[in-house]
Each structure stands twice: as structure tokens, then as C-alpha cells.
């Protein structure tokens, strides 16, 4: 904080000082010739100063702020190479820094907004710019340049002067200016290509600063080019125009930087809103997805949570394939080195890692909540699926058993009864004892057949599969103490008919029961009342839940009323 304050005050002082100097000796300054020039000098420098301070304040460990401040300082210090300067030291510094602004600004632009240069090429370009502009053009030229020889008799002493070789100094400077001209073009292209290669989201952030910066670097290249023929940075008509244009583009850079800070601040506000909103709707799954897709303007955004078994699911327990198959971009939200969620978004929507971090920390509570929700929902879905498989396998097995009983045991019993009766008729008249014995055998066989049919029907009522629920319920009613109040005509999916039938059958097994079943648009509604033993509901639930039913039961041992809605897809 104090460092920033100090730097700020220093640069402001520098600016005021530079103005005074420029004003008092307009011949040596592009700004000093008019009030407009002075104002331009001040506004351009101060806007960079303000942008730098704002950025530095918001992001203390980011190089962009200090670099903008440095550029602002160099901009003002460039006015020190003025005869009015008085101090030889400051005069010399002015000479050295007079060409340093483009390199410093290029650095700030290329490392915006993260404060780091992304590629080696950028690092080398910036290093080259600093070395050439400060080292070769600044210090290098100053070594052989005595202002007195060039006609500035009242200029302060050049502290770095080694030898007064005006011709050599001029050639040297021309070479350095030429190199800087080329460098500025290269830096401009680098800024442009960085912008073009960025994702749409990154482009929204980089755009304003990069465009203003590119224009500035282009203007800098032009003013270096204008100076090549002359060999030094001078103050001709073109120089003046270019200088004004550069100053305006500097103001644009500063404005772009400040605008970006405002954008981030607004995003923070929406993130705060997001957190508040999420806090309110913590109960329902999928709320983060909705809020984020609204915030980021991507309606198809998905939030995938890693499950403990390595799969991924959304907050509703819907399994998602990772990596995404539809070309969505995958952005991990990481906290404490652990991936808490994956964002699946339109390519480029989440280009800014800064935004991802903000989301990750803003929604940390909800992320945890929804991840656990996803875990629970997925497990529940797994369980339901396995319950469905078990019930289906059970039904198939029952059906197979029922067929086997009819095709095997029943046939044999009938043939046996047939054989007994034929034998009896062939034996002719028998004594009473034999007749009684044969009567007993026939009676037992008939009872066995009856028993077998009852067992087979209990195992699997063929009429349910053949004729449907209404017929099966009617048949059940004819067999037992069941009152069918209403039963829907027509057929339902087998799983629905089975579930409904088993529920009624289970009630009937324990005594009197009443059933009323109706078809509605949302599937089959069935209401059964009767008695169930304690825990009797659980077995029913297996069948009902396997068919996707929702159940409501009321009552107790005295009588249970169960209402279930079984959806038909």
C-alpha cells in the first residue's frame, strides 16, 4: 500500500515537474509548444498512472500495475532531456529513458491481464525491446553524445559521456532507431496474433487493451520510422502529430485497463448474487447449473461431479460421459488440489481461468452440496435399476415355473387319472372295497390337480399376461375376498400390470381387500385398502418402485390404504 502510494506520488511529482520543464523550454519539447500539448502530456501520463494504480490496488501481485506506472514515469521522464533541467543526473536519465515507453507499454499489454508473459517469444521480444530502447538507444547513444556540440550550450552536463563523437553517435542512434522501428512492428504483430489466437471469452477480455496497445505500437513504429532518416528522435511536424496520436492511444490503453477492472468488479457482484441465489435454493439439485449458465450466457452448460467410483454425474444423478462427446470444453474446478467439479461449456465460454477460480471459490459450498447430491442420486438410480432387474428376473422365473408345472406335472397327473379311469372301466365290476379304494385315488388325483392349478396361478397368473390387469383382478376376485370397484380396460406395459397385480395379490393374501384401479394420462392409478402385516409394505414397494411408481400409504395394523401411481412411460 505504502509502496503504491509512494510510487503514485512520485510519478505525479514527476509529471508536474515535466510540465514545468516543457513549458519553460518549449523548443526541446513536443508538449511545451502549446497548452494543448501540455494538457496532452499530462493527461496521457496521468491516465496511465491512474490505470496502473487501480490495477496495482486490485491485484497486488500482478506486474501490469507497476509496468503501467513505470511507463507513465518514463513518459514524463522523457521530458527531462531539456536544457532547463538543471540537474545533470536527471538530464542524463531523461536522455536514457526518452525511448523506453514503447517497450514498457508493450510489456504491460502483452502480460495483461495475468501479469505473466505466456510464451518464450514474448519474453525475448520484451527483453530485446528493453535492451535496445534503454541500453542501445538510451545509454548507448548517450555515451558519445555531448549536447553542447549539437548546439545546446545551456544544457546540463551529460554524465555518461565518454567521448564526444557526434558522427558516430548519430550513426549509432540511427541504427538503434531503425532496430526499434522494426521491434515495434514485431511487438504490434505479437499483440495482434495473441488476440486472434484467443478464445472468444478471452477475446472479450483482451480485446480493448490489445487493440489500443496495437495502435499505440503501430504509432510508435511510425515515429521511429520518421526518425530514421534524421537519426535521432526529433520534433518535426510529423513527430508532433505522431506524438499526439501516441498520447491519445495511451489514454485508450489506460481506459481499457480501467474498464476491465470495472468488468471484473461487476462479475464479482454477479458472483456474489450467484452465491446468495444458490444459498436460497440449496435444496434443489441443478441450481448451480442454472445459475452458471445464466451468468456465463451458455444455456447448454453442464456441471459434472466426480463420483467416488470414477464416474461423473450431474446434480440430479444423471451420468455424464467424460470427456464430453459433443465437443464441449472441459474446465475442472479445483480446490485443495482436488477436482470438485467439471464445467462442460461451449468452447471458449470459460476461457478465463480467473473466472473459473472465482466460480470455484464463490460456489464452494454449493459445489460440495451438489457433488454429494449427485453421489446420492446416482447410487439411488443404480439401486433402482438393480431392483428393477431383480423383479424382472423374478417375474420371468415365475412365468417359467408356471409353464413347467402346467406342461409337466399337470399333464402327468391328468394322464394318470385317465389311466386309472380306463383301467377301472376295463376291470368291470369290482367289490365295494376296491371301488372305494379307486374312488379315493381318483379323488386324490382330482384334488392334486386342483391344488396344482392353484399353486401355478399363485406363482404366476397367466391371465395377467394373456388378458390384462382387469381380467386378472376379476379372476382374483372370483378366487378370494376381493372387491374390484373399478378396473381399467385395455392393456398396460407388463411391468405396470405386474406391479399393480402383485400389490393387490399381497393384500388379498392377508384378508379382505378392496381395489380400484383407473387409467389416467400419467399412467395407472391404483388404490387398495385392506390389511397388511407389519413390514408387508416393503415387499410391495419392490414391485412398485421397480415399475417407477410413487406410493402413498396411510393407516396401520387395523387397515392400510395404499395409493400408487405407476407411470406408463
Amino acid at each position, binding site marked *: 500500500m505504502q509502496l503504491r502510494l509512494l510510487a503514485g506520488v512520485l510519478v505525479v511529482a514527476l509529471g508536474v515537474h515535466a510540465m514545468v520543464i516543457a513549458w519553460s523550454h518549449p523548443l526541446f519539447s513536443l508538449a511545451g509548444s502549446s497548452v494543448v500539448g501540455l494538457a496532452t502530456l499530462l493527461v496521457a501520463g496521468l491516465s496511465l498512472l491512474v490505470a496502473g494504480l487501480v490495477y496495482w490496488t486490485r491485484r497486488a501481485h500482478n506486474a501490469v500495475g507497476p509496468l503501467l506506472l513505470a511507463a507513465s514515469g518514463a513518459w514524463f521522464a522523457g521530458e527531462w532531456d531539456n536544457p532547463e533541467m538543471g540537474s545533470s543526473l536527471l538530464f542524463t536519465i531523461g536522455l536514457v529513458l526518452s525511448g523506453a515507453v514503447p517497450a514498457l507499454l508493450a510489456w504491460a499489454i502483452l502480460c495483461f491481464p495475468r501479469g505473466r508473459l505466456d510464451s518464450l517469444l514474448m519474453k525475448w521480444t520484451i527483453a530485446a525491446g528493453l535492451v535496445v530502447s534503454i541500453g542501445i538507444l538510451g545509454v548507448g547513444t548517450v555515451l558519445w553524445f555531448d549536447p553542447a556540440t549539437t548546439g545546446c550550450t545551456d544544457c546540463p552536463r551529460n554524465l555518461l559521456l565518454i567521448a564526444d563523437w557526434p558522427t558516430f553517435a548519430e550513426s549509432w542512434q540511427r541504427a538503434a532507431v531503425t532496430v526499434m522501428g522494426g521491434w515495434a512492428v514485431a511487438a504490434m504483430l505479437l499483440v495482434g496474433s495473441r488476440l486472434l489466437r484467443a478464445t472468444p471469452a478471452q477475446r472479450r477480455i483482451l480485446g480493448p487493451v490489445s487493440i489500443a496497445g496495437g495502435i499505440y505500437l503501430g504509432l510508435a513504429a511510425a515515429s521511429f520510422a520518421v526518425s530514421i532518416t534524421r537519426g535521432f528522435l526529433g520534433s518535426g511536424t510529423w513527430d508532433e502529430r505522431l506524438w499526439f496520436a501516441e498520447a491519445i492511444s495511451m489514454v485508450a490503453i489506460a481506459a481499457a485497463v480501467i474498464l476491465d477492472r470495472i468488468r471484473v468488479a461487476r462479475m464479482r457482484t454477479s458472483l456474489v448474487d450467484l452465491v446468495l441465489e444458490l444459498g436460497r435454493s440449496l435444496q434443489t439439485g441443478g441450481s448451480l447449473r442454472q445459475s452458471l449458465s445464466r451468468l456465463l450466457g451458455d444455456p447448454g452448460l453442464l456441471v459434472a461431479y466426480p463420483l467416488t467410483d470414477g464416474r461423473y454425474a450431474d446434480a440430479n444423478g444423471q451420468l455424464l460421459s467424460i470427456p464430453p462427446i459433443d465437443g464441449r470444453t472441459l474446465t475442472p474446478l479445483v480446490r485443495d488440489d482436488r477436482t470438485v467439479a467439471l464445467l462442460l461449456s461451449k468452447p471458449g465460454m470459460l476461457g478465463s481461468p480467473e473466472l473459473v477460480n472465482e466460480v470455484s471459490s464463490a460456489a464452494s459450498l454449493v459445489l460440495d452440496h451438489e457433488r454429494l447430491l449427485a453421489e446420492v442420486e446416482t447410487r439411488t438410480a443404480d439401486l433402482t435399476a438393480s431392483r428393477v432387474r431383480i423383479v424382472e428376473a423374478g417375474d420371468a422365473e415365475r412365468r417359467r415355473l408356471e*409353464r413347467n408345472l*402346467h*406342461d409337466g406335472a*399337470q*399333464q*402327468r*397327473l*391328468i*394322464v394318470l*387319472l*385317465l*389311466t386309472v*379311469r*380306463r383301467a377301472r*372301466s376295463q376291470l368291470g365290476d369290482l367289490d365295494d372295497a376296491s371301488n372305494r379304494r379307486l374312488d379315493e385315488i381318483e379323488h386324490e388325483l*382330482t384334488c392334486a*390337480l386342483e391344488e396344482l*392349478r392353484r399353486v*401355478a*396361478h399363485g406363482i404366476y397368473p*397367466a*391371465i395377467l*399376461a*394373456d*388378458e390384462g390387469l*382387469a*381380467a*386378472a*383382478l*376379476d*379372476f382374483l*376376485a*372370483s*378366487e378370494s375376498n376381493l*372387491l*374390484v*370397484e*373399478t*378396473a*381399467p*380396460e385395455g392393456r398396460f406395459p407388463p411391468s405396470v400390470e405386474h406391479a399393480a397385480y402383485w400389490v393387490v395379490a399381497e393384500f388379498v393374501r392377508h384378508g379382505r381387500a378392496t381395489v380400484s384401479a*383407473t*387409467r389416467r394420462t400419467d399412467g395407472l392409478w391404483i388404490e387398495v385398502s385392506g390389511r397388511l402385516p407389519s413390514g408387508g409394505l416393503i415387499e410391495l414397494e419392490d414391485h412398485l418402485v421397480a415399475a417407477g411408481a410413487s406410493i402413498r400409504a396411510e393407516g396401520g395394523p387395523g387397515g392400510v390404504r395404499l395409493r400408487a401411481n405407476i407411470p406408463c412411460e
Partner: protein
Amino acid sequence: MLLREGLARLLTDSGIEVVGTAVDAPMLMELVRQQPPDVALVDIKMPPTHTEEGLVAAQTIRHDYPEVGVLVLSQYLAPEYALRLLSDVPERVGYLLKERVTDVAVLVDALHRICDGECVVDPTIVRRLIQRPRRNDPVSELTDREREVLSLMAEGRSNAAIGRLLYLSGKTVEAHIRQIFVRLGLEPSGDDHRRVLAVLALLRSTGREQS
């Protein structure tokens, strides 16, 4: 299969000519086409799926060969199967529980009655229908005696047979039957036709509101 062979032997013993036996529906249809019998005796369960092939085959025969009667053997007590068979063409058809075949007299009687153009429904099924608890159903309006008459009608008995079985005069039986027709709301038309409709009303009365 054992039962098929046993039945063929039993019927031959009882003086009924067995013109052929078939193992599945296509073979049955081929047999009926080549030498149409008086009655086809069909098991409701046939290969390959053992569900309803027999019932479907029976309906096809009734439809394509009206002069051929069909007696369906079933292991199901449910009347819906019988109803499906009877609603189509309610004559020359019968529906018996499978174990009934062990009672030669019943089986032969049923075959003869079907030959004569009657309908035969297994007495066990009819009894269950009559006893079934029901609501909003004209059958429940009948007196006990009328119900007895109706159930015998449903089994396919003639007026004379009903009178004999219930120890009633022919006139009394006729009076009961007329009363049944009235209570079931059957318009006067051919008596035979109304008899069948009365039986169908019984089979259809399933104790529930039609929704």
C-alpha cells in the same frame, strides 16, 4: 405327448373316430384343411410359446371352417378365455378344463353337443361366475333359482335337460328363462340367439364398472 395319445385311445375306445392328431397349430390347421372333422379338440397351450396358440387356432378354425366345431381344453379357470372364444361365433364351441377329459362321459357328451351346434362351457367356470361377488350387474338381480337355470344354460343344457336336472316341468323352465331374458334386458328375437346372449352376459358380467 402322453396326454394326446391317451386321449386318442380313450376316444377310440368310446366309439369316436379320431381322424388325426397334431403336435402344433400349423399341423392342426393342415389336418383340418385336408379332412375337416366334426369337432377339433384343441389344447389352449401349444408350442412354441405355450401361451395362446391353441386359442388363436381355435378361433381361426371357427372363422374359416364354420362347419367344424371346436372344443378347447384349458388349465385356466378364468372365464375371459372362454368369452373370447364364444364372442366370435357363439356356436359349435366348447371350453372345458383340461382335467375334465378324464371323465369320459363328460368329454364324449361335450363333443356330441358341439356336433349338434351347441355351446359348452365347463360347469366349474360357470359355477364360479354365478357365485362371483358383483356390483351393478343385472345377473345379481336374478333369483337363486333363475341363476341355477342360467348356469345350466351356460353349460349348454337344453330346456328338457335343465328341467330334468332341477326337477322342474318344461313350462316352469321356460318361464324362468323368459324371466332371465327380461332381467338381462334381452330383446325378444330367436330363442337360441337369446340363450347365447344370456350366457355371454353371464360371462361378461365381471363385477366391475366398464370404464
